[in-house]
C-alpha cells in the first residue's frame, strides 16, 4: 500500500453521502446519530482503502474482517455498505421497519456484517478468536475491531488487550473511536480514560493516535500495519461526536436523536454548509 493517499476527494464525497444516509435514518424512531457521524470517516476509509473485502464473495475465508463492537454507529456502516454496493440503498428506508433487519445495532442478517453487537466489550474477544485462527492457519487476513471510547469502561476490553498481547496478535487492530462522549456525558467527566495511549502501551500494544476525520492521517497510520512485529495494533482515532453537523457536534444532549421531518431537511442542508439548524425536537431521548 502506498503511504500517500491520492483519492481523498472521492473518499470525502463518499463520506458525505454516508452522512446523508445517517441523517435520514435519524427520524421515525431515530438512531444514535452522534456516534455514527464520529465513526463515518473511519468506516468509509477502512472499507474503501484498507480492507480486502469482496462484495461478491463476502464469505471468502481469506477476506479481512471488521467487527463493529460499539454498535451504535451501525448507521455509518449501513450507509457505507449502501455507497460501496454491499447493500441496496432502497433498504435504508426500512430502518426500524418490522419487514427488514435494519435497526439500532448490527446483525448478521445484513450481508457483510460479521457479528452482531450491542452489548459492549464482546467483539474485541470475538475478533481475538478470528485472529488466532488466522495465525494457526498461517493466513494473511487482517482483523479490525472498532470500539467506542465509552465502551472501554467494560473490563472485557482490557482483558482482550491482555490476551491479544499475550498471543502476539499483530494481525489484529483495535480502533478506538475517541469521540470524547459516552451517552450523555463527557468520558473525562465520568470515568476518565486519559492517558489512553499510555494505557494501551503499558498493556503491550503498538499504538498510533491520529485525527479520525483526516483521510491522510488514517492512511498514514493504516499503511504502517503491522505497527510492530508480535504486538497488537491499536489506533486511537480522535473524532468529534456529531461530526459534520455543527448544531449537534460535541453536544452531550444529542446522543440518541429522533428528529422530525423539518429538522432532517434542515440538517441535510447544514451538512452541505448552507446554514445552522434550529433544532426543535426534545433535546434528549434515552434508550
Amino acid at each position: 500500500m502506498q503511504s500517500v493517499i491520492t483519492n481523498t476527494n472521492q473518499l470525502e464525497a463518499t463520506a458525505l453521502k454516508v452522512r446523508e444516509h445517517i441523517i435520514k435514518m435519524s427520524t421515525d424512531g431515530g438512531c444514535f446519530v452522534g456516534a455514527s457521524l464520529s465513526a463515518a470517516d473511519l468506516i468509509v476509509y477502512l472499507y474503501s482503502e484498507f480492507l480486502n473485502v469482496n462484495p461478491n464473495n463476502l464469505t471468502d475465508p481469506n477476506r479481512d474482517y471488521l467487527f463493529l463492537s460499539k454498535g451504535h454507529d451501525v448507521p455509518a456502516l449501513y450507509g457505507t455498505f449502501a455507497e460501496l454496493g454491499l447493500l441496496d440503498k432502497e433498504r435504508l428506508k426500512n430502518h426500524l421497519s418490522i419487514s427488514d433487519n435494519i435497526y439500532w445495532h448490527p446483525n448478521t442478517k445484513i450481508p457483510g456484517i460479521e457479528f452482531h453487537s450491542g452489548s459492549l466489550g464482546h467483539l474485541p474477544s470475538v475478533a481475538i478468536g478470528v485472529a488466532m485462527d488466522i495465525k494457526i492457519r498461517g493466513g494473511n487476513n487482517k482483523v479490525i475491531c472498532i470500539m467506542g471510547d465509552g465502551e472501554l469502561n467494560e473490563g472485557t476490553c482490557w482483558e482482550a488487550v491482555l490476551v491479544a498481547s499475550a498471543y502476539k496478535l499483530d494481525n489484529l487492530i483495535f480502533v478506538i473511536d475517541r469521540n470524547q462522549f459516552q451517552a450523555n456525558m463527557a468520558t473525562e467527566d465520568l470515568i476518565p480514560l486519559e492517558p489512553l495511549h499510555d494505557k494501551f502501551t503499558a498493556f503491550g500494544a503498538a499504538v498510533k493516535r491520529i485525527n479520525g476525520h483526516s483521510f491522510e492521517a488514517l492512511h498514514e497510520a493504516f499503511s504502517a500495519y503491522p505497527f510492530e512485529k508480535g504486538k497488537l495494533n491499536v489506533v486511537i482515532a480522535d473524532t468529534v461526536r456529531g461530526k459534520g453537523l455543527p448544531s449537534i457536534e460535541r453536544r452531550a444532549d444529542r446522543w440518541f436523536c429522533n428528529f422530525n421531518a423539518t429538522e432532517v431537511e434542515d440538517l441535510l442542508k447544514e451538512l452541505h454548509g448552507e446554514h445552522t439548524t434550529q433544532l426543535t425536537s426534545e433535546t434528549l431521548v434515552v434508550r
Partner: protein
Amino acid sequence: MSYEELLTEIALSDERFIVMTAENRALVRNIPAKLGNRFIDTGITEQTMIGAAAGLALRGRIPVVHALASFLTMRAFEFVRTDAGIPNLPIKLSSFIPGFLSDGNGPTHQAVEDIALMRGIPNMTVFAPADEDDLVKMLPQIWNHPHPSYVRINTRKTDYEHSPFELGKAEVIAEGDDVTILTYGLLFEQALIAVEILKKEGLSVGLVNLRSLKPVDEQAILHATRNSKLTVTLEDHFLTGGLYSIVAEVLLKHSLTANVLPFALNEKWFKPSLLPNVMEHEGFTGKQIAEKILGYNTRFHQPEISIPQFSE
C-alpha cells in the same frame, strides 16, 4: 408520582439509600443533583457496580442499582448471584427496558429470560409491575424488605388504579369460569383489552396481575386453574423459566394439572422494531390474544399502542 420522584423522596428521607447506575440515567436523571455523594455512576461497568453495591451493603447501605435489564441480569449475573445472593444483601436491582420494551435495539438488549435467571438465585425476590401506578405502589415495600430484589421497571401509564400492594400476593382483577388470564408487567395493558373482547363475546373471564413472581402467590394460581376451564399465561419472556414454568411448578407441587395456554417467546428472540410493530408481529396485542383464545377473528378494534418515550 413517578419512579424518580419516589426514589428521590425515599432516598432523601433515609440515609441508608444509595442510588447507583452503570451509566444508564434515564430513570434517575435529576437524582445526582439531589443526592450528592449518595449517587454513584460507575460508568459502563455492570459487574463492578454490583460488586461495589455489595461493599456498600456490607456497610449498612441499601443500594438501588440501575442498568439495562439484559446487562444487569446477564452481564452481571455471577456478581448478582455471588455478591448479592450468597450473602443475602439488600441490593435492589431496577432493570430498564425489560421484555418487549427494548423494542428496536435487537437481541443483545432483549431481557426475556430475566425472570428465569433472577428467580433461580436463592434469597432473591422478583417483581414485575403492570404500569407506573403498580410500580409506585410496590416499591416502598420491596426496598424496605431485607433481601435482594429484582424489579422489571415499567413506567408506562394505564387507566387502571391498582389495589395496595402486598409482597407475595397477586392482584386479582376479575374472576371468571371460562378463562383466567395470568400476566405481569407490560402485557397487563393488553390483557385488559383482551378481557373486554372476550366478555363481549360472552365468556366469563378472570384476570390476575401476578406482581410478585418470587415469592409467588400460589393460592391465586391454584384458584385460577381450579375455577376456570382455561388458564392463560401471558408474558414477554421466554416460555422457559417464566410464568408458564412457575404455574407448572405450582401445579405439580400440589399434584394437579390444568388446561393452560401460554403466550410467551418459544425458543426465539423477538423481531426488533418499534414497540407497536413488535407486539403486532409477535401476536401479543389484546385483540390477537383474545382471538387466539376464542379460536376465531372478531370485529373489535385494537387500541393504539403508544411508542415508549424516555424523555427527560
